[in-house]
């Protein structure tokens, strides 16, 4: 139940977050995208929080969806277990690199 509820919540976060991200990256004028502006923006703590929440929402939402697909479509237990193992390891690795980029 909690996994399903978190899927819904991250879905809402993604809708709002993506909209914000999209508007900021595409409609805010050219000055916004210079190297200095981007570096400045990424060093702000509020941006770091936003990016980490965004990262976790996207990873959780996407991989929970894949988990559902595997549960429903994959026949044969060994293949199923292997794929389920992959979709735990892969998002963890991606989260690690994501955090590294955002924080350091």
């Amino acid at each position: 139940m909690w996994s399903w509820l978190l899927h819904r919540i991250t879905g809402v976060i993604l809708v709002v977050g993506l909209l914000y991200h999209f508007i900021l990256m595409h409609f805010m004028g050219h000055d916004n995208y210079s190297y200095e502006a981007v570096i400045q923006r990424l060093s702000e703590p509020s941006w770091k929080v936003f990016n980490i929440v965004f990262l976790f929402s996207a990873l959780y939402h996407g991989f929970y969806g894949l988990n559902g697909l595997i549960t429903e479509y994959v026949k044969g237990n060994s293949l199923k277990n292997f794929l389920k193992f992959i979709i735990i390891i892969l998002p963890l690795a991606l989260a690690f690199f994501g955090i590294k980029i955002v924080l350091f």
Partner: protein
Amino acid sequence: MSKYYTFKIKRYLPDENPKIRWDVFRLKLNSMERVLDGLVKIKETMDGTLTFRKSCAHGVCGSCAMKINGKNRLACQTLVKDLPEKIEIEPLPSLPVIKDLVVDMTLFFQKNDKVLPYLINEEPPPERERIQSPEDQHKILESITCIMCGSCTTSCPVFWTDKEYLGPSALLKAYRFLFDTRDRAIEERLEAVTGEHGVWRCHSIFNCVEVCPKEIDITKHILKLKRLAVKKGFKGGPE
């Protein structure tokens, strides 16, 4: 006014030939007759080996659910005049076929049993019956009209691929008892429907709603089950 119709029927006669074949019959039916009348006419006058289920023939028993022109429906509830001149009939999809239009419903009924489809109330019974107010009855009225024909579960794409999924019919049955004010087994029943292959596998595809011969909004009921499970989960019930 009568008209000629072509019935194209998917045949599977394991005693004769393990391969599927399509038989075509041409017969005259009047505008008041239903697909089931056509099937009976074929069996009586053209090909006695044609096999299908039927009992009440008035949309109450749910025996004659089959796939007619690509959609699961009751043969006894479908007038031929509402269909094109060519009528294609198949057994219900994704269940093992026993013969012709007869499918093995064991899996379907097993799922139904999993949600404990009976009233559970340990309290001593009152002098007369357990009273239910009209308002309380209204909460479950729609789900009670289910005749368990199997149209919904066999039309569900999740059930096609995940045979362990409880399916819309069993979940609707769970709803019928979970929201019954006389029932006391909320925890047990919720545990039965919230497993990995339970209520969370419903992705609101609405195929079940589209085919239901009793026009029950099954998806709405399943979503209410999800909501109830989340509410109970916050109060420390089964997850």
